[in-house]
């Protein structure tokens, strides 16, 4: 079983890196990019029997800092 964890800054938390990417896209002539948010994707290769609840606990305890980040878990 594999799981893919998406970690993003929470809405309302300023993302200076996303903002820099947005500026760079504008410099390249891509008008109309109203906002960019940059996050990360973590792929987990899991032993059989690992549950989605286990993955959620991994996110809470390490993979995301829930002070500033939110996460979603996708079982693939």
């Amino acid at each position, binding site marked *: 079983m594999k799981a893919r964890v998406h970690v993003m800054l929470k809405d309302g938390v300023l993302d*200076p*890196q996303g903002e820099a990417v947005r500026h760079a896209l504008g410099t390249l002539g891509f008008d109309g990019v109203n906002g960019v948010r940059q996050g990360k994707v973590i792929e987990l290769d899991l032993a059989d029997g690992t549950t989605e609840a286990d993955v959620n606990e991994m996110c809470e305890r390490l993979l995301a800092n829930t*002070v500033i980040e939110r996460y979603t878990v996708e079982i693939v």
Partner: protein
Amino acid sequence: MKAAVIVFPGSNCDRDLAVAFRAAGMDVTMVWHKDTGLPDGIDLVGIPGGFSFGDYLRCGAIAARSPICRAVVDHAHAGGYVLGICNGFQVLTETGLLPGALMRNAGLRFICKTTPLEVVTDQSDFTAGYGVGDTLNIPIAHHDGNYTAGADVLAKLSDEDRIAFRYRDNPNGSVGDIAGVLSSNRRVLGLMPHPERAAEDAQGSADGAAMFRALAGALADA
């Protein structure tokens, strides 16, 4: 008084911190991150600056889950003193011993320069050697020092007089110009600036020395 300095792979201010502790009269033991306990009788734990575990995942995130950090959290919960500087501050927020988080600097650049700090409280054994409103010249050297916390946390920090230092000239976008915060029992301090790099005149500023002297005095009296 006995102090421990934790060493992670990628720590690079551990020896500077040990020098500053020793200059203040402390007996210092270096403790490796894989150790599961602190030496007996430790009064103060220093978590140094650097790039523990290469800043993988998030700054301080892996270090905060290392075996020794469990012992550091227990030490803090038992009323022990902990000082986290720069990466050490990031580690302390990741352990949950201090609230908030440290994000990428607002200007996206690594900043290495001496910056003026305002002493916000003298009500702690870290800051008792300063006067409220004093300006200290202390170096910063970080890429991820942009302190953030929810409005409820910020109100609580302010109400409880737990903001230890503010930047006079905010270099990194930190909310409320916050450079360092205290735990609710005032025995855990995390700050981004490096007082151990301003602990004697030869370093260009000795404004950090009073922090180590005050700590040593408090621990000697304890």
